């Protein structure tokens, strides 16, 4: 009987499928290219300009923002949360109607250098022209030439969702007046060629400061605080200065290079939004460029250290017990981790940022290590949202931030509740396997 019923269901569905129209009969599709597959496709031999453009597209991490969930690489459509509203990234493929197929090198350079679209309207600074302005005309032409060789995708991103008055593009004029200066990259002749190369990559195409420098209420970099860590999209992009506790002061140049190339080193693993930066950008760069980036970052002056109040002993005790049961199987009792597999937490700079946002985010939502060519395993921390209460997450976060020599501000259950709400993790999203309720 049950068998007959099941069979009937199959037949009934078959009919329903036909009635519902053609779409029902289409097999699920997957993008032809993930960003790193697209970007690691070699250009035709002997095409130096295209190869240069490919390298710059990698350095600019274009694919991370110009690829939506489940979409073709570079076809755009990812929503960017900005202080002004949600902006959807445009389609960068050479499709003539929906992409940049009709853009001229002049138009493209104006966008990169001046932040204006082909019609002369201001682009929103979600597009990092503030940094790309340093890219030369020749490099800009190379990027466009390269983009015109990627597979064209006919796709129109959704319209931006920006409330009045931010939907008035002219307001950007004022923003630019305050925060933007059209300029070319100026090498520092007193520094080495490697350092200058690094400075160009970090402050130009790499636009690292967009996340790693604190931003003001209008989303622009705060002045005088380069690379001291920024908070955006519910993540804390850590301090990259020479501060030895919160920054990269303890990292060697080689460790920075290994991190950027493979997504992991003995001190840390790239997770959160940085995992994509590594997967789609830095891991595809040359060793020389990575060394240049590291040399430049090692020269950034240390941020001033902040002293944190001593944590509540009760929170530390509870947090320690939770850590032992729930965290130590990967991070080990002494917080020493397993290098390149599960990051150490003792001495970890990311855990000790003044703002605990990323620590809470990782515990609530989980996080995975960048997948790279040489180390493809996206080793992933599971979500604890369903398992731990807000207070328990606060306690264990406080414990991690104040054990094994670490020191950072305590975390409150309120902090956790707020982020849990933003991430909509009151209940955990199911997995495909969750359908089985046996």
């Amino acid at each position, binding site marked *: 009987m049950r068998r007959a019923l099941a069979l009937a269901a199959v037949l009934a569905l078959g009919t329903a499928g036909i009635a519902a129209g053609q779409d*029902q009969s289409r097999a699920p599709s997957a993008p032809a290219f993930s960003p790193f597959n697209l970007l690691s496709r070699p250009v035709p031999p002997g095409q130096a300009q295209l190869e240069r453009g490919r390298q710059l597209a990698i350095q600019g991490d274009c694919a991370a923002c110009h690829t939506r969930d489940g979409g073709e690489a570079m076809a755009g459509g990812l929503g960017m949360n900005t202080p002004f509203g949600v902006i959807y990234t445009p389609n960068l493929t050479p499709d003539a109607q929906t992409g940049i197929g009709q853009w001229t090198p002049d138009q493209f350079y104006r966008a990169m250098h001046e932040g204006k679209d082909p019609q002369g309207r201001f682009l929103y600074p979600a597009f990092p022209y503030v940094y790309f302005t340093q890219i030369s005309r020749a490099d800009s032409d190379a990027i466009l030439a390269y983009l015109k060789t990627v597979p064209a995708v006919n796709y129109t991103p959704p319209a931006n969702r920006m409330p009045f008055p931010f939907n008035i593009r002219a307001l950007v004029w004022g923003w630019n007046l305050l925060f933007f200066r059209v300029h070319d990259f100026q090498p520092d002749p007193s520094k080495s060629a490697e350092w200058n190369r690094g400075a160009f990559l970090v402050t130009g195409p790499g636009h690292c400061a967009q996340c790693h420098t604190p931003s003001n209420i209008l989303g622009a970099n705060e002045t005088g605080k380069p690379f001291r860590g920024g908070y955006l999209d519910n993540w804390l992009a850590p301090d990259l200065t020479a501060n030895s506790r919160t920054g990269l002061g303890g990292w060697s140049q080689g460790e920075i290079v290994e991190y950027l190339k493979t997504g992991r080193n003995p001190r840390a693993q790239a997770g959160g939004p940085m995992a994509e930066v590594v997967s789609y950008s830095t891991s595809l760069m040359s060793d020389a460029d990575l060394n240049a980036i590291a040399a430049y970052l090692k020269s950034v002056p240390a941020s001033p250290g902040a002293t944190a109040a001593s944590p509540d002993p009760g929170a530390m005790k509870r947090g320690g017990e939770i850590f032992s049961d729930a965290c130590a199987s990967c991070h080990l009792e002494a917080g020493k981790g397993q290098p390149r597999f599960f990051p150490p937490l003792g001495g970890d700079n990311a855990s000790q940022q003044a703002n605990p946002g990323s620590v809470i985010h990782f515990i609530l939502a989980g996080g995975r290590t960048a997948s790279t060519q040489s180390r493809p395993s996206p080793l992933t921390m599971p979500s604890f*949202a369903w398992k731990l209460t807000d207070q328990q997450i606060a306690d264990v976060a406080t414990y991690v931030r104040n054990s094994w020599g670490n020191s950072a501000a305590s975390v409150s259950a309120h902090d956790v509740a707020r982020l849990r709400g933003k*991430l909509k993790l009151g209940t955990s999203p199911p997995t495909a396997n969750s359908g089985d309720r046996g």
Partner: protein
Amino acid sequence: MGRESKGISRRGLLTGGAAIGAAGAAAAAAPKHDGELGAPPQAIRGEVPWIEGAADAPPQAMSGKGYVWFTGAEGPLIEAIVDRLIPPDPTGPGAVEAGVPVFIDRQLAGPFGQGQHFYLGGPWPKGTPEQGYQSRFTPAQFYRAALKAIADHVFKAYGGLEFKSLQPDAKDKLLKDLEAGTVELPDGVDGKAFFTMLLQNTKEGYFSDPIYGGNRDMAAWTMIGFPGAHYDYRDWVSRHNERVPFPPVAFKGRPGWTAS
């Protein structure tokens, strides 16, 4: 400035935008086959998919002591039976105080009770013992029929008494007869098969994670010395013949996680 939070990560699990709509619409009516129970088909290429925050986590902790599936006399009868299967004594909790009846109740109300992971299609000839479970009944249907049959049997055999009113020895005698298959229950109910299922479910409720409603306060784990969901024994592998000091821990923690 940052990425729009959509509740799923970039390049999340449901790769293929076109598929989501179609599959989502079809999911409700999809033929349930092979354990996957209507999860939509997916096409995955280029990256290992992942959804931020996703977890195939166990069900939310069972709450309340009342029954949701047992009705009328079923609850007291189950309590009286499992109290003999695992009686209380100073060694450790009995099945009743461990919450086993609540565990069984919630199991019968859920997918197990409905026969998930049982094949129940016919025909249903009597099989050999080696062919195992050959009933057409779901566990819930089986419990309902068997509890009534046991109650009726006791009523008849013991002059109108209820099982719970019998002397312990009489209770055990009946349970042993069910176990051995030597008592004939009314309505053709297979008492031996039922006893096998009930004893198994009783031990499940006694020793499973408290999130399922049994093993209250992890007392059954404490009794035998099992540390529960503790995950890491590396430091203890080579420490032979020593008592491992970890207190039992459940999925939702242990008292030390919340003590002030």
